[in-house]
């Protein structure tokens, strides 16, 4: 299965902006973030195809995962 992982703000450091990942079996978002070395505490906003998601959600083939560290403003 193929996923697009979009990283933002400080999470881009040493990882890049947009990562195309391919997995053979069912993979949770948590497994993906762990593989990228992103700590659960650093995941403040997590979106699956633009909708709120949880680390234990399983994306489908072709899905986009967007991950933000704690950021905000106004």
């Amino acid at each position: 299965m193929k996923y697009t992982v979009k990283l933002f703000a400080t999470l881009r450091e040493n990882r890049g902006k947009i990562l195309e990942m391919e997995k053979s079996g069912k993979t949770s978002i948590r497994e993906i973030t762990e593989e990228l070395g992103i700590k659960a505490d650093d995941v403040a906003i997590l979106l699956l195809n633009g909708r709120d998601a949880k680390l234990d959600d399983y994306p489908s083939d072709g899905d986009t995962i967007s991950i933000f560290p704690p950021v905000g403003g106004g």
Partner: protein
Amino acid sequence: MNGYNGTVLRVNLTDGKITREALNQDEARKFIGGRGLATKMLMDEIDPKIDALSPENKLIFVTGPLTGTPTPTGGRYMVVTKAPLTGTVASSNSGGYWGAELKFAGYDAVIFEGKSEKPVYLNIVDDQVELKDAQPLWGKLVSEATAQLEEEHGKKAKVAVIGPAGERLSKIAAIMNDRGRAAGRSGVGAVMGSKNLKAIVVKGSNKVSIADEAKLKEVFARCMTKIKENGVTGQGLPAYGTAVLVNIINENGVFPTNNFQESVFGEAEEISGETLAEKYLKKKDPCYRCPIGCGRYCEVDDIKGQGPEYETIWAYGSDCGVSNLGDIIKANYWCNEYGLDTISAGATIAAAMELYQKGLIKEEEITGAPSLEWGNSQAIIDWTKMMGAVEGYGAKMAEGSYRLCESYGVPELSMSVKKQELPAYDPRGIQGQGIQYATSNRGGCHVRGYMISPEILGLPEKLDRFTLDGKAEWSKIFQDFTAAIDSSGLCLFTSFAMGADDYADMVNAVCGSDYTGTDFIEAGERIWNLEKVFNLEAGIDPSQDTLPKRLLEDPIEEGPSKGWVTKLSELLPQYYSVRGWDEQGIPTDEKLKGLGLK
């Protein structure tokens, strides 16, 4: 007195008389200070029905009890007046250093009344206060006027000034202080211009008296730890400023594009906070005693200055279909120079672009002027200058998007509430923000109750952005809490980290008062209701508690929020009920009595 100086300065511009009055302590306790207290003063002194640009209107520069004290972000001031853009009460809040300096000079507020025959400015040096001739400054851009006043009064003098937009009564004119900080919204700059008041220069040498230094030290340490440890105030805002929101809001599919015709901008990355930090950021530019430091200072070609903020990047960026961040920085710069509100200015250009797209603005109307094609980044700079100078077709746009669209018979194309341009979040995909926009006491605004915090950022907890459950209650609490924070003189951004008890403890340590967290929020509710009463008396009836037709009837066409409209008709009755107002949206006598407003 502690916290407050206890003195209000009154300047009659008609006869040049300057007087000092004692601050009403009972009312200060009830309305905290700042936004709340000045709204009470305004209501006591003017008929809300008056023309905002007439000499009968009053213009109040006001601080909070924490302004100028050693508290985190304690440097805010507000401008309270009747707003020419909306007809509502205006309360435009600004940071920088000017507000703290007014406290150091010994005043809590300055009330301007009447109208000067000729352009003047007010010079305050502690208890020496005089009106001076501003004719040599009239017509000058903000940085020129500021530099000239600093030359005359010394670099330590802090300057609040209007640019040509305010002088020429643009209804979207701001008051600028410390060059790049703005009391931006609702046209407060035009009220200052209507009084022939160019600037207020202030220099103070006193310290604000603190009731309990030891307690303040303890509360300060506790709140600083919270601010530093909070991801938003400790890391996100310091590193990227507010512009970091561009990608977050776009990824959620609620980033208004081409005047809210779309909600996802394909080129968001090019105008993002990440790109700003990589390409244009020169340094951080924090306000007085701010441990967060979200302010940016950017440089592009021969332009350098403060900003841009997220809202500005959006208004001039995706809302106009523009992806050239360098040109957005330039447009922001010219807004600061002419003294225009960046949200209303950018959003008005976006509205003009839609009028042009639909063939309503004819080519011959703008012959020789910049193009109004979507995405034309030179045009956003050129139109800003023309709006700021209130010249040619720019004069029509300087009235704001509502009056512009109304002149073509299509006011519904103005993406505004109560004639004030909406900010950078499409409420169709953020239901709580929708009710907040519709009921905001100053029209289209995000900082009257920032529901983005729970609905998008997950602070203090994550709410489903599409559900209606609990949104009326959350909106009320956010509105009340915000009114209280504004009135205290701290920056709203502290609320990402601090709770009501923290603010109450801080005000108590400074003023020697005895607010609980609940009292603090209740004072906010009192302020909210008072603002509502002002608006009702001004003739802003609850039929204006609504949103542009597009947001109520046209579902978002693409992206993660596809298919959604704002479900205002369901939320509004819930909101009125939660507020303890009647079904028509009018505060009941019982509610007003309970809050001590009757």
